[in-house]
């Protein structure tokens, strides 16, 4: 029985080769997209899942009036550990993002994320050095491990992980460290690192003001987290008061501590934007939608071909087949097609994966032994077989033999409505993506062409670890660099305008206190970045006071204070230092387009900010490579403090990374629009083929009655056009709301344009006419005699 059904299925599929190919191909492409999305979903939700304490680990964060942060101070964890019995262990760590060179005789590696953590944190995160995790005996002992890869680069011959001595920082510093061995650095973890330092206790002697640490707690299974959070918050508040905070101050009242589970840290941390989560959700919805659309094609086509199979159903029923046997037969047929699609889908996914990995900065692979796909794929297969197959199987197996065997079988009106409805649904989704893509394109074009207020082009950022905190310390280096022909200007600052947040502090002007971002800069900072001055002047060597107490504000800061004549006013803040405002610059978008420009104060003398380390040069475009070569060869002499390794980046590339998320979105929408349009067209193509075939007689009769070809084309196109127009009408409000919401995530954005709506309507209508007319062509051109001769 089964083998016979299989044979019939294959013969049937073979006979309708085109439709079969459309069905299987469309589904395979959709499946490829879905498989990749599934893999990405598994990856993104799997951070730290390998940790046996996954569900019991929480990070302690703080709610501050303006923002939330995961940075806490070291004593907080200790107090909680001592007082709260539900907390099994407390791990504290500090992350250093400084790029530190580590050298051996053989090679040099650069650490970009070094983790400084206590033994308990290492245990909590299941960190396993190759020679075992040992507890540091004294508070001065420091167990330093490099990731396996880095270790191998430095000591290719040391297989046993025997302790070695390495150089830290530039050679001139002469700093060394004892390397205790190598450690597996799990990249699939929230605390991914490339080196760790395990100590007995971190932040020794640091009080409640030192909020530079992450405190993780591990609770007993089954703990009431809300109650625990309240307890933690109470302890935090009490300790803050002990540490001389004023309990009546507004800021204090608005501050609290919270707990955030480890499993949320990667995608939707409380102290974060959750944009990763949103992107993941959007992708998942997209993947499912595309798959559903492809399944709808299946359903549509299977029902469209129902008339062909109706006779078979009728005959089999009078031969004694039960309905379920027939349902099973049709389901099996669809299962076969889905199986082929799945295999094809895997192949397509394998082909697309490198591009996807590149776009999303991940490293997914299908062919890994413990891949979750092993159990996901069969589930997906069953899922699509059911969605695509159940309805047609029910419809087909439900035919009444008395009706279908009479020979003049007509499909019921109901299924016709259903097919139309499904087509409208497909087109609606396609229209949403086309409109979305066009609007995203407009916004990105706007972002690329809009004046950001400074010119990152031809600005080179040189990585440097040496501090140039005190004014004047940088002068010799500037002099050396400036002598190189082709260098226009040189400066140093404590942050670069690549979207990084500066520190914040309270400043007072005319008795009005406001929180401002403060940036420590040097002479020529504004000139190097080509920032326009609005009022007053930039820092100049001619004014001796500029290295002492001059400050420059941006427009946003002036607006925040509501100053009308800011030049010459005093501004007080940062260890009660008083500055004199000498200039106002035009706002420039250091943070990109999503966040508004921060009210910022710039000063050369900046005792409370991070030390100035970030060197920036403006170079003549035509002499770029020449200058970089000269710098490379002379760097050890120029920068005596950190001159071993000349490493640089172009500022425009760094700033361009701020657009990366949106460019990702654009790529995703591009792919989605192409896919949904493609799949909807496939569905339309096959459906039009069916409709035309079933109307061959009608067309012939009309031709004999004198209809022109054009009139017949119009006739066939009309129903499809109605559907496409309806789809457009349905999706416009949806697309409008979605794109408006998306645009609202930008501080600087375009007005919602109407052209994309018109364009997607035009595009879908045009594609529909082409697709349908191609199908109708053969029927229209055929000699009517052929169609009418045979009954």
């Amino acid at each position: 029985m089964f083998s016979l059904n299989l044979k019939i299925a294959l013969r049937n599929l073979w006979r309708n080769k085109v439709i079969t190919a459309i069905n299987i191909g469309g589904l395979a492409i959709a499946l490829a997209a879905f498989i990749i999305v599934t893999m990405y979903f598994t990856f993104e939700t799997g951070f730290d899942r390998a940790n046996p304490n996954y569900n019991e680990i929480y990070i302690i964060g703080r709610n501050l009036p303006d923002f939330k942060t995961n940075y806490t101070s070291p004593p907080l964890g200790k107090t909680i550990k001592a007082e709260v019995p539900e907390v099994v262990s407390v791990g504290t760590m500090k992350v250093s993002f400084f790029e530190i060179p580590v050298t051996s005789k053989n090679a040099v590696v650069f650490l970009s994320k070094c983790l400084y953590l206590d033994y308990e944190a290492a245990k909590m995160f299941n960190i396993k050095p190759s020679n075992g995790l040992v507890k540091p005996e004294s508070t001065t002992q420091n167990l330093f491990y490099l990731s396996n890869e880095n270790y191998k680069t430095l000591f290719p011959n040391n297989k046993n992980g025997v302790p070695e001595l390495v150089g830290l920082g530039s050679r001139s510093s002469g700093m060394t460290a004892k390397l205790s061995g190598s450690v597996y650095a799990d990249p699939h973890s929230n605390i991914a690192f490339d080196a760790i330092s395990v100590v007995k206790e971190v932040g020794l002697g640091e009080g409640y003001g030192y909020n530079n640490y992450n405190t993780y707690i591990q609770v007993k299974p089954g703990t009431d987290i809300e109650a625990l959070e309240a307890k933690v918050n109470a302890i935090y508040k009490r300790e803050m008061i002990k540490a001389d905070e004023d309990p009546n101050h507004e800021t204090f009242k608005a501050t609290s501590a919270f707990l955030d589970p480890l499993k949320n840290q990667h995608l939707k941390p409380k102290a974060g934007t959750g944009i990763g989560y949103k992107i993941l959700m959007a992708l998942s919805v997209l993947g499912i939608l595309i798959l559903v659309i492809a399944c709808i094609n299946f359903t549509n086509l299977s029902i469209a071909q129902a008339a062909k199979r109706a006779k078979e159903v009728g005959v089999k029923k009078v031969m004694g087949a039960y309905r379920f046997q027939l349902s099973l037969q049709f389901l099996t047929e669809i299962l076969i097609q889905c199986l082929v699609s799945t295999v094809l889908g895997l192949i397509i996914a394998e082909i697309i994966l490198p591009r996807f990995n590149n776009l999303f900065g991940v490293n997914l692979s299908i062919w890994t032994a413990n891949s979750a796909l092993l159990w996901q794929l069969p589930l997906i297969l069953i899922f699509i077989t059911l969605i695509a197959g159940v309805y047609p199987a029910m419809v087909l197996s439900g035919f009444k033999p008395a009706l279908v065997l009479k020979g003049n079988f007509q499909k019921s009106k109901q299924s016709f409505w259903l097919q139309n409805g499904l087509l409208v649904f497909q087109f609606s989704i396609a229209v949403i993506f086309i409109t979305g893509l066009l609007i995203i394109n407009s916004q990105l074009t706007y972002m690329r062409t809009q004046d950001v207020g400074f010119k990152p082009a031809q600005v080179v950022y040189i990585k440097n670890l040496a501090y140039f905190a005190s004014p004047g310390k940088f002068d010799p280096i500037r002099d050396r660099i400036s002598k190189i022909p082709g260098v226009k200007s040189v400066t140093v600052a404590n942050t670069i305008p690549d979207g990084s947040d500066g520190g914040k502090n309270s400043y007072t002007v005319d008795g009005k206190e406001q929180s401002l971002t403060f940036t420590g800069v040097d002479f020529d900072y504004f000139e190097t970045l080509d920032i326009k001055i609005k009022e007053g002047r930039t820092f100049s060597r001619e004014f001796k006071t500029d290295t002492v107490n001059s400050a420059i504000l941006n427009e946003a800061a002036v607006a925040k204070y509501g100053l009308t004549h800011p030049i010459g006013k005093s501004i007080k803040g940062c260890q009660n230092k008083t500055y004199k405002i000498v200039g106002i610059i035009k706002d420039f978008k250091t943070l990109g387009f999503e966040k508004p420009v921060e009210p910022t104060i710039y000063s050369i003398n900046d005792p409370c900010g991070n030390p100035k380390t970030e060197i920036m040069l403006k170079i003549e475009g035509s002499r770029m490579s020449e200058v970089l070569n000269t710098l490379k060869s002379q760097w050890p002499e120029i920068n005596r403090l950190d001159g071993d390794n000349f490493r640089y980046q172009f500022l425009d590339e760094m700033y361009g990374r701020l657009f990366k998320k949106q460019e990702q979105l654009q790529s995703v929408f591009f792919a989605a629009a192409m896919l949904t349009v493609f799949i909807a067209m496939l569905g339309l193509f096959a459906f039009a083929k069916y409709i035309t075939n079933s109307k061959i007689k009608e067309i012939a009769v009309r031709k004999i009655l004198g209809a022109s070809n054009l009139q017949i084309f119009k006739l066939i196109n009309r129903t499809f056009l109605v559907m496409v127009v309806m789809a457009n009408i349905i999706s416009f409000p949806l697309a409008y709301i979605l794109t408006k919401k998306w645009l609202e995530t930008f501080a600087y954005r375009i007005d919602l344009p109407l052209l994309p709506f018109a364009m997607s309507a035009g595009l879908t209508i045009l594609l529909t006419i082409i697709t349908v007319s191609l199908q109708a062509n053969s029927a229209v051109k055929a000699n009517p005699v052929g169609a009418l001769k045979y009954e």
Partner: protein
Amino acid sequence: MIQLNNIEKYYANKGVKNYVLRLVTTTINQGEFVSIMGPSGAGKSTLLNIIGMLEEPTYGSYEFLGEDVTALNERKRIELYRNHIGFVFQAYHLIDEMTVYENIEAPLLYKKVGGAERASRIADLLDRFNMVAKKDLFPNQLSGGQQQLVGIARALAAQPSIILADEPTGNLQSAQAEEIMELFKKLNQEDGITIIQVTHSEKNAQYGNRILHIADGVVKEDVLVG
């Protein structure tokens, strides 16, 4: 074998009843060869469909082999199809994707006849109808008469006690039609299979032993032949 009592069939359209069959009462015994005749639209096919349980009468009772089948569930009805009833159609209704052999085999698969038994029955039928050489051909490679032979072989495969044929020769040339009617006659006389056919042709009706004349849904005449 078949007992029809006051069978009525009508379609209600806007409150008006359009009668297809009115008060049809008749008995058909085992071994009879009955031809149902009448003008187009008289209700012949509907009567045959009701006898074949493909349609339900609106009113009246129907006993098949002594069992009331007017409201039979699907499972019971299918059991009857598998064991007692064979259908032959005007348009043959062979399954296009199956070869001659597979078409004949299909009902046996539903009846769950064992492999060896199945092979021997099919071989037997192919032999009897001189179709051995054509067993691997598909329906569209056969002439109409040959297709109808396969249709009959398929109906016979399950060894039914009754064959219901709706204009079995309607699409055939006269020589082929004669061949089919001879075959029916032989099946009726030699194998004792009850046959009920719907036909337009007086000539074809003469092959049987009883004719039911129907007009406007009413049995006008019930005559014995020969």
